[in-house]
């Protein structure tokens, strides 16, 4: 039979349509390796979503070897978190195909706990963890993970707010560094920022400011309010926004004055508003108040200048407070293998994994109190340049107990919808002062009632 062009086109069309139909059909079940359940060797598969990027190898090695040795009946399948993982994970939860374990933080836990998507691990804690084991976690993280009456997970790592300093710039501008022991207050902080800025101006440098602090950030502005004796909300899951009180206003005003009155702290539009490494690396500021990631920061900044960390200064009320994050691993409510997932969860929050992977591979602060001393030694062994960085500050923050979890409204989404734009207007745009937040506070309170 002669093959005409028409025959060929028809056949191609049919094959294409067939392929399209096949593609639209339900996918064949992935092999045993692809789903939670039984692996080929009869071990139970636990799917673990990792947000560790390039460090995922450390997870695969440790969970594939060390963990498997201890729990031969459980096989952990480590899956990298895809771009846009929050939306995708939510979709997977709706579809019933989510991994068993994932890593997230406060507001995600809050939203997902409200919708019953997260497994309460408190019964496992009660059943399988000793009092000493629980006491080895830091109080602020342990209580921070009690969300809407459940325990949302076990902590992954600690992030604490400190003041990162560029020692080279301090030396160059002949300004004394803030004290190592944390014996300084907000007047000192403002004075040092001012000295740095003026010294740079005297040298003809107009692209430099003493410090940078992301007061426009929901997570970062509140502890300064607390240090001035105010508070954002009346209680945990409270209904009354208290940003209108004189104490709260004083804290908000201090931050605003530094950026928009004396401009000794950089305005976001003068540098940038997202990541303190990007602000410090080009030498725009000599101090940045932000998170503490020793390994990452040493890699990013250490090659360019000599850096160090300091406690945030004490507030005028004598209170010193910073955000201590409660980033954690959680088990999805839909997990078909919750007992095995708990074993994995307990393992990754345990001392071996924390020291080997969280510290050893990721270079971040472990969640176990008992590891803090070795963490400092381990970090310095990994990166000798950290010998000049006062990592003891981290141990002191945890020891002094001034880190706290973020604030929570009863309806945090409604509060956020009003407060985030208002913070941006005050601190990013800067055309109004913190008094703008007095009316916003009333609106937030009203939104909580509805």
């Amino acid at each position: 039979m002669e093959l005409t062009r028409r025959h060929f086109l028809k056949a191609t069309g049919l094959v294409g349509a067939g392929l399209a139909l096949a593609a639209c059909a339900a996918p064949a079940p992935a092999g045993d390796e692809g789903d939670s359940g039984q692996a080929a060797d009869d071990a139970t598969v636990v799917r673990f979503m990792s947000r560790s990027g390039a460090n995922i190898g450390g997870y695969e090695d440790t969970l594939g070897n060390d963990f498997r040795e201890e729990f031969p009946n459980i096989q952990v399948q480590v899956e990298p978190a895809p771009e846009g993982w929050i939306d995708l994970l939510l979709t997977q939860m709706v579809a019933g195909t989510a991994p068993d374990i994932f890593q997230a933080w406060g507001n995600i836990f809050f939203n997902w706990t409200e919708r019953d998507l997260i497994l309460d691990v408190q019964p496992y804690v009660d059943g399988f963890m000793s009092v000493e084991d629980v006491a080895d976690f830091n109080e602020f993280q342990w209580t921070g993970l009690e969300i809407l009456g459940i325990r949302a997970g076990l902590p992954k790592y600690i992030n604490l707010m400190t003041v990162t300093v560029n020692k080279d710039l301090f030396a160059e501008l002949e300004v004394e560094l803030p004290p190592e022991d944390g014996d300084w207050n907000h007047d000192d902080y403002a004075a040092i920022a001012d000295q740095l800025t003026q010294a740079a101006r005297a040298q003809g440098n107009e692209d430099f400011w003493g410090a940078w602090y992301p007061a426009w950030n929901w997570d970062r502005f509140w502890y300064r309010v607390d240090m001035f004796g105010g508070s954002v909300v009346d209680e945990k899951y409270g209904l009354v926004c208290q940003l209108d009180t004189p104490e709260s206003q004083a804290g908000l005003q201090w931050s605003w004055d530094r950026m928009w009155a004396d401009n000794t702290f950089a305005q976001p539009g003068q540098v940038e508003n997202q990541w303190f490494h990007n602000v410090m690396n080009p030498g725009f500021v000599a101090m940045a108040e932000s998170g503490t990631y020793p390994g990452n920061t040493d890699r990013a900044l250490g090659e360019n200048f000599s850096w160090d960390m300091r406690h945030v200064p004490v507030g005028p009320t004598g209170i010193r407070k910073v955000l201590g994050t409660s980033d954690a691993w959680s088990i999805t409510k839909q997990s078909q293998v919750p007992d095995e997932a708990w074993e994995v969860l307990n393992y990754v929050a345990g001392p071996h994994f924390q020291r080997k992977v969280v510290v050893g591979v990721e270079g971040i602060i472990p969640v176990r109190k008992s590891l803090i001393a070795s963490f400092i030694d381990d970090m310095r062994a990994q990166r000798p340049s950290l010998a000049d960085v006062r990592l003891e500050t981290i141990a002191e923050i945890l020891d002094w107990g001034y880190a706290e979890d973020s604030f929570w409204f009863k309806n945090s989404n409604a509060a956020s919808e009003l407060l985030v734009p208002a913070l941006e207007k005050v601190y990013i745009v800067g055309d109004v002062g913190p008094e703008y937040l007095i009316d916003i506070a009333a609106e937030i309170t009203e939104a909580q009632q509805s």
Partner: protein
Amino acid sequence: MAVTSKASASRMSIQARDNIAGFLFIAPWLIHFVFLIAGAMVFSMGISFFKTDFLTGFEFVGFGNWRDMFQDELFWKALRVTSYYTFVLVPASVILALTIAVLMNQKVKALGVWRTVYYLPSVVQGVAVAVLWGYVLNPRFGLLNQGLELIGIDDGPRWLFSEDWAVPGFILMGLWGAGGAMLLYLAGLQGIPTHLYEAADLDGAGSVRKFFAVTIPMLTPTIYFNVLISIIASFQVFTQALILTAGGPNNATLTLVLLLYREGFQNFQFGYASAIAWGLFCVTFIFAILVVRTSSTWVHYEGETNN
């Protein structure tokens, strides 16, 4: 047997066979459209009448979500922001793309290089463009304000850090991709019959007259296509708002798609988000219809007679 099959095949007309072949060719797209687009649209229309987070159930609220949308200040703000973006970007983009196309249509040296230079930005899309423009628009160190400084404007706009200048910043970002439309205009320009220009020359028309009396009318089908597509695309602006400003500062760049994303994926109001999606569809549809309906008054097709 062969005779029977040949006879049954011949019963089908050539037209019918061509139609079947045509439908088979478009079957993949058709299946995609019916199941993944039209199906999803119908579903989204349905859930716009429910209060649902997809997780804890569906509560029928009738037009409640629609009523909430019309009473929601953020919806109106997002509509204003999106409309501002669209109705500045679309005409500006047409003018810029057409200008470049006219220049590219001249006998200039290294024409191929110039065409590539202008077209290249339009093939870079999404997050990469947003991140790049984040640097370009930095008020102090960005390329744009540095350029403004060179022409004597020392205190340039604060762009993404200003409520007034953030959307114009997005518009500049949108104009960067005008090369795609430029290519279409260029094709249109090269398709204009030279005898029309010769006739205009005989009538004593100058360059400007020829441009407005010959070039523009002959290009109106291309302009029409570009305007329609650009309006639809501009109303869907999202990536730069999500990546660069998250809708800020103070919701100055809160676009409709960003609002529906927030309501759906952050606030779990999928019913309400669907109502916003349909609100966006209606707004886009109205403007698209306006363009289509008015096109008979300003779009000219070659050989068309005005009776």
